[in-house]
């Protein structure tokens, strides 16, 4: 029983001060716990409060928990017994609130487990949990995947539920280092405002206490079945894009890279390996660096040459060489630019696999 356990802590504190005796009485006036064991089982008339014997009803959230009895010859007995009563009631209320919060968080955990079960999407169970949590299923939500390499404090994470701006939040601590939130978006928010909204939300989380974390933000989803996609977007960011602490990374900023990454590497390799092998001596690191920089600069050759500390003519010479090797038109056509990005992505991935010792 929660109250008896809490009361033991009160007994320990009161035993340090020999001036007082403290007891917990049930509704019928029998002592069930006491700082002096000899009183356990004794009966008191709780209406008989005297100068050195105080009885108070313990009533929390409209429920009666029996009586607290405080005894002593000290002149401050009344003040101390009121203080003990208030502290006991406050603590009891705290523990009741915490217990109810834990139950809610456990339901959130269960809901997220079901939402992320790609093999079997159990809509009935999900709707049941959503109903129990009082969550609006029609809201658009985004996965925010938070990584803390030092480890989260589970008690602190439980309190996320109490933030005033988190009424529609669904979240679960996936493991000690990974926290997944599905955060709702206000219905009237323009698409262009979404990133700003999430930046502000993440800043608030940091101010609240989640510092030293990395934040990966997935795509917007308005169907329960696709929440998993938003989560998978975050996992893709984690695996493919370098991220830093406290600076959020948005999946929507990497759509091109994401779709490029979805093209089968072997499909690209089967076509272009022939050209690469025949060229002999192509510097793959230089090739992927140039391709990447061109992409970042919208294929502006002057800007790319500047960024790579190359003379513009040198860069053009290298691009011409790549055009010859792979038989594509990088400078003149849109298709050539897309193919360059595909080839560079494939070669980059093979370089990575070679470096980690994978068989390619």
């Amino acid at each position, binding site marked *: 029983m929660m109250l008896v356990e809490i009361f033991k802590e009160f007994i320990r504190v009161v035993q340090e001060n020999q001036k007082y005796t403290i007891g917990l009485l049930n509704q019928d006036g029998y002592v069930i716990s006491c700082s002096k064991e000899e009183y356990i089982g004794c009966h008191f008339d709780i209406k008989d409060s005297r100068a050195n014997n105080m009885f108070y009803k313990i009533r929390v959230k409209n429920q009666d928990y029996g009586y607290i009895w405080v005894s002593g010859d000290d002149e401050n007995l009344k003040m101390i017994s009121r*203080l003990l009563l*208030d502290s006991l009631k406050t603590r009891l*209320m705290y523990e009741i609130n915490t217990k109810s919060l834990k139950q809610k968080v456990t339901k959130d955990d269960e809901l997220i487990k079901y939402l992320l079960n790609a093999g079997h999407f159990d809509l009935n169970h999900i709707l049941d949990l959503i109903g129990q949590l009082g969550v609006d299923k029609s809201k658009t939500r985004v996965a925010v995947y938070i990584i803390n390499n030092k480890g989260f404090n589970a008690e602190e994470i439980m*309190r996320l539920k*109490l*933030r*005033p701006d988190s009424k529609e939040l669904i979240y679960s601590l996936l493991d000690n280092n990974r926290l997944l939130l599905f955060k709702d978006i206000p219905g009237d928010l323009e698409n262009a405002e979404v990133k700003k909204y999430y930046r502000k939300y993440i800043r608030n989380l940091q101010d*609240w*206490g989640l510092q030293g974390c990395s934040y990966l933000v997935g795509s917007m989803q308005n169907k329960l079945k696709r929440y998993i996609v938003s989560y998978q977007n975050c996992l893709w960011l984690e695996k493919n894009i370098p991220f830093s602490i406290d600076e959020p990374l948005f999946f929507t900023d990497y759509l091109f890279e994401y779709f490029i990454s979805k093209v089968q590497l072997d499909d690209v390799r089967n076509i272009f390996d022939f050209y690469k092998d025949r060229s002999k001596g192509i510097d793959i690191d230089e090739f992927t660096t140039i391709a990447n920089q061109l992409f970042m600069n919208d294929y502006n050759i002057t800007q790319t040459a500047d960024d790579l500390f190359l003379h513009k003519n040198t860069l053009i010479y290298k691009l011409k060489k790549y055009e010859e090797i792979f038989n594509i038109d990088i400078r003149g056509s849109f298709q050539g630019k897309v193919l360059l990005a595909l080839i560079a992505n494939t070669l980059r991935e093979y370089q990575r696999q070679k470096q980690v010792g994978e068989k390619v």
Partner: protein
Amino acid sequence: MSTTIKLARVDQRLLHATVALNWNQFVNANYAVIVDPSYSNDPFITRVMQLCLPEPMKVKIFSVEEFIAFINKESTAKRNLMVIFKNLDTAKEAVEAGFKTSEIQIPYPASRIVIKKLSDFFNEEEIRCIRFIQKKGIKLFFQTAPLDNKEYSVFTK
């Protein structure tokens, strides 16, 4: 690690009302600091107040001087403070001694009377304390429970 003031509140009912309303959980505080010179030297009362909250939450009762020394002391642990002043005079003394925060909360009067001007609820001495605190760039507002609106307007008149 730094000390962060998560909530500064003036409440003569001290910790009991504040914890009962769940403030520590809403603001993610791990320290409850009561600034009340009358109890600061009584270890038994401090121990009884600590019983309001389970470990690892910490409860401290300080005089104004002890409080200022506490917040200025370097700490290796993360300290998110919920600070409760016994009254406006104690809050003013703390501000005068160098306590910095952006705003201080005062619970609505229990009767929820409509307060159109400060003198409807505060006495002259309290109004002097309010004006002193405001001059230091700290806002004051009424709010009892975490989901109540913050009411600043009375204090700006």
